[in-house]
């Protein structure tokens, strides 16, 4: 049937009333990142290269919750996670708790290709990133004013919340349950 590609930029309680100045940049980014992937597939790049390329573009866009624009922990810090997997070989690589790696997905691919392991986290992942010479930045690179405000709102509502969810809509009366439900 030929090549195919799909991408996402997060899910949640996305309000249909989202103002156009917040909505349009996200729609434009979806179009842009899709085009990057389509062109790469047309050029004969491997699916593994394509998904890394597209996710890097999404990470670099501050309108989505990954890389630049990552949401904040309760302490106001950034802890990013990423994973990549090759269907043919089931080779895979994952990282958690990275705070200075510009593109966590590229670090995950290095874990897959350059280590005997599948998953590195926190200090070990950061140390591996430096060993590999992957681009690192100050963690302030990832923090946006919008996400500082979102953290403030979430703390006021005593909630943890998924992408784009409006804290006031999900406030519970009996404490900080948040996503511990399921």
């Amino acid at each position, binding site marked *: 049937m030929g090549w*195919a590609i799909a991408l996402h930029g997060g899910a949640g309680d996305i309000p249909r009333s989202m103002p156009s100045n917040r909505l349009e940049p996200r729609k434009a980014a979806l179009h842009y990142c899709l085009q990057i992937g389509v062109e790469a597939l047309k050029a004969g790049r491997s699916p593994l290269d394509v998904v890394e390329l597209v996710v890097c573009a999404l990470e670099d866009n501050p309108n989505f919750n990954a890389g630049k624009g990552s949401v904040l922990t309760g302490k106001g810090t950034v802890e990013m996670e990423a994973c990549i997997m090759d269907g043919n070989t089931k080779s895979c690589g994952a990282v958690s708790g990275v705070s200075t790696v510009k593109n966590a997905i590229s670090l995950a691919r290095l874990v897959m290709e350059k280590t005997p392991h599948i998953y590195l986290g926190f200090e070990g992942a950061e140390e591996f990133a430096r060993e590999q010479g992957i681009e690192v930045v100050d963690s302030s690179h990832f923090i946006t004013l919008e996400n500082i405000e979102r953290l403030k709102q979430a703390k006021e509502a005593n909630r943890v919340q998924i992408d784009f969810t409006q804290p006031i809509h999900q406030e519970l009366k009996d404490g900080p349950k948040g996503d511990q439900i399921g």
Partner: protein
Amino acid sequence: TVGCVAVDGEGNLAAATSTGGLVNKMVGRIGDTPIIGAGTYANKLCAVSATGKGEAIIRGTVGREVAALMEYKGLSLNEATSYVVKECTPKFTTGVIAVSASGEVAMSYNTVGMFRACATEDGYTEVGIWAGD
């Protein structure tokens, strides 16, 4: 969370997912994204990337569940993703994108919306956020 799944004309598949996690999460919290078989999975049948409430997606082993339904129950990609999103995860928790080795595309969610886009070699393109887009 962001993610991408792709298949080439020879049926080679790959999946990738990246995230900052949850707003106001505890320091040290691990979500579904880096968990193989939960937020990210690929084999010779399909490639899957999920987004939403990580704890629900981990409990549902969402990525692997889609592949298993195709492998063991013979469901199509769309049937498998729809089943997992509707039956295997609580409402308002999960979004999934997936492609199959034969070039099918699926984008399914039980949240209010999901920022999503897809394209296929035959010229189909879709960019949407809410149902009906």
